[in-house]
């Protein structure tokens, strides 16, 4: 007998006392919890996102679409990055105001190469206001998962308000589980030493979020 059959057989015998129950799953689990917490306007939701991101030590900037290239150029200059990694689908115009050398997100680049990159600029799929979370789904404007992990400085651009939702349930509705997903709430952090929070053990130590309105 294979272990598969053995385990499934044990499960069935273990449940011999349980009455048969064919209630459809949707009815078996009542969901009386909230779809979102609080009653906020669109602008208030964006404001909450900014607050919660900052509370977890992400650096938050706000600008209009026409101002975005200048903001990105300034952030790269302040950081003094010698190179910037750009996913293939990121709008070229966003980097129009900077001459920091670009590095492409290539499948064959090694982790060592990524480790030498100064900064990475990406978009996101959705942002969750109540938890201060950015979700990346590896779409062409976000690139492979590792590019937002190995470099030490991540600039993430969020279109507001259309990419912002209030809550975790609303975010899951918008996401496709077939894509690889990375949820990011502030920079990498650890509290393993006497519960003192320290940023950046393994991931980017600096996370900058630019909230861009159509303006």
């Amino acid at each position, binding site marked *: 007998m294979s272990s598969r059959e053995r385990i499934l057989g044990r499960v069935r015998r*273990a449940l011999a006392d349980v009455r048969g129950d064919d209630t459809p*799953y949707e009815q078996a689990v009542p*969901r009386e*919890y909230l779809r979102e917490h609080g009653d906020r306007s669109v602008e208030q939701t964006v404001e909450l996102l900014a607050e919660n991101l900052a509370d977890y030590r992400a650096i938050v900037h706000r600008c209009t679409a026409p101002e975005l290239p200048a903001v990105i150029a300034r952030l790269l200059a302040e950081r003094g990055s010698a190179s910037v990694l750009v996913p293939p689908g990121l709008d070229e115009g966003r980097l129009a105001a900077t001459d920091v050398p670009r590095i492409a997100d290539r499948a064959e680049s090694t982790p060592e190469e990524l480790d030498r990159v100064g900064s990475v600029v990406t978009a996101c799929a959705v942002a969750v206001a109540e938890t201060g979370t950015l979700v990346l789904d590896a779409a062409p404007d976000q690139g492979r998962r590792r590019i937002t992990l190995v470099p030490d400085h991540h600039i993430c651009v969020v279109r507001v308000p259309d990419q912002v939702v209030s809550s975790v349930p609303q975010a899951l509705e918008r996401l496709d589980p077939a894509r*690889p997903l990375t949820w990011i709430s502030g920079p990498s952090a650890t509290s393993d030493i006497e519960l003192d929070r320290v940023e950046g053990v*393994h991931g980017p130590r600096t996370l900058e979020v630019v909230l861009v309105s159509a303006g």
Partner: protein
Amino acid sequence: MSGSESGNESGNGTGTGTFVGMPAFPRAAHDAVNDQTLRGNLRHATHTIRAKRAKAVAEVSDWAALRDAGKRIKDHTLRHLDRYLEQLEESVTAAGGTVHWAADADEANRIVAQLVKETGESEVVKVKSMATQEIGLNEALLAEGIHAYETDLAELIVQLGKDRPSHILVPAIHRNRSEIRDIFRSEMGSWGRPAPEGLTDTPAELAEAARLHLREKFLRAKVGVSGANFMVAETGTLVVVESEGNGRMCLTLPETLISVVGIEKIVPTWRDLEVFLQTLPRSSTAERMNPYTSMWTGTTDEDGPRAFHLVLLDNGRTDTLADEVGRQALRCIRCSACLNVCPVYERAGGHAYGSVYPGPIGAILSPQLRGTQSEIDASLPYASSLCGACYEVCPVAIDIPEVLVHLRERVVEGGEVIRQGNKVVLRPAKGHAAERAAMRAARWAFTHPAALRTGQRLASRTRRLQPRTLPGPGRAWSGTRDLPALPKEPFRDWWQRTRTRGGSKEGSK
């Protein structure tokens, strides 16, 4: 006996398997309670997390409804576990993964070692995983010539310190910063990049030393090993919740990813994650959301590992499922909230529990996964004051006190249980003879009222002559407690005298 009980303590010194030869809880706890540094470290940690957690939970007004939904999702999943396991296997396979089934620890370890060997590698990087600790994977791999590097900062501290984890969430919680600095200075060099010159004990410097030490390993790793917090049957998606980014490193940089996951970690639908992604971070690290959550469904071309293996682990879980009272322990999402509120854990520390699952949840999970035949497992249901704080904070409403009492009864009385899928009749545990004798005597006395009355009167009238401590086998019990004072008069006599016809309404005194 499951393979997990043969976990090897020596090995490469990580000692992360089950803890063979551990003294029973009372003895281990006695030593821990006398360790001032340990108690100080623990008290600081548990009180800090406890206060933060209460605040994080208070932020969501629907906590009770989320908790109830979490409980119901898990209960529903467990009662149809066979169906969901088959569905999960189908979804993972369709997404490009390979599913393996492991009935016990030995089989899981063999599968993982074989998979690593097939890649031609002799090193793996690991993201912290309770399941792989439970089965003693690191030691088993080492026996096959494969080095497993723990990459969570706390796990690194534990591994370098040749120590054992003592908390589910913060495994090195029993160590303070200067202890950690000493471990890094003396041990890092023999595992890879040494600690920087002049390393101080500030957390930032210690974290930086760990970053440099581990980055070397991440960048060259070809095989990653993980557990998972959730597996979605409907979509085949696996979820790992973490803070440092070492999880993302292990899940995305290697060419091969092997995930060892207990069969109870399934949720039926994608939507179910909306409950647990709200309750888990707030209950465990007391955050609105943990810094990183990775979700992957099979493999993705040119993004992350090219090969993904899921090892579904039983190792006592189906035996636990067979227990009508105890099966609720399988709802556990490993948040560790119950540890942080437990007065016993706070004083005794995690090591005293003698397994990778310490605290209240460990006290009910370990004796069910491993059986109650060993001394430590038979003692665990007693490692509690039954105060109920653990039940209050549990985000999936596991009634831990109920299971503790149920397991105590099993230890004392014996009875029928399922071990490795088979019915076994347990004999009453040794060392509880006095308890059983007392219960038998009580049963007899209560069915013989005249004898009870005589005995009570005799006890009351001789109260001045009675010792403060018990003689013989009762000495240990009364060594730490005062004997209850006997009343001057048995209650039954008092009632008879004051509340029945002929007695005064107010009583005599």
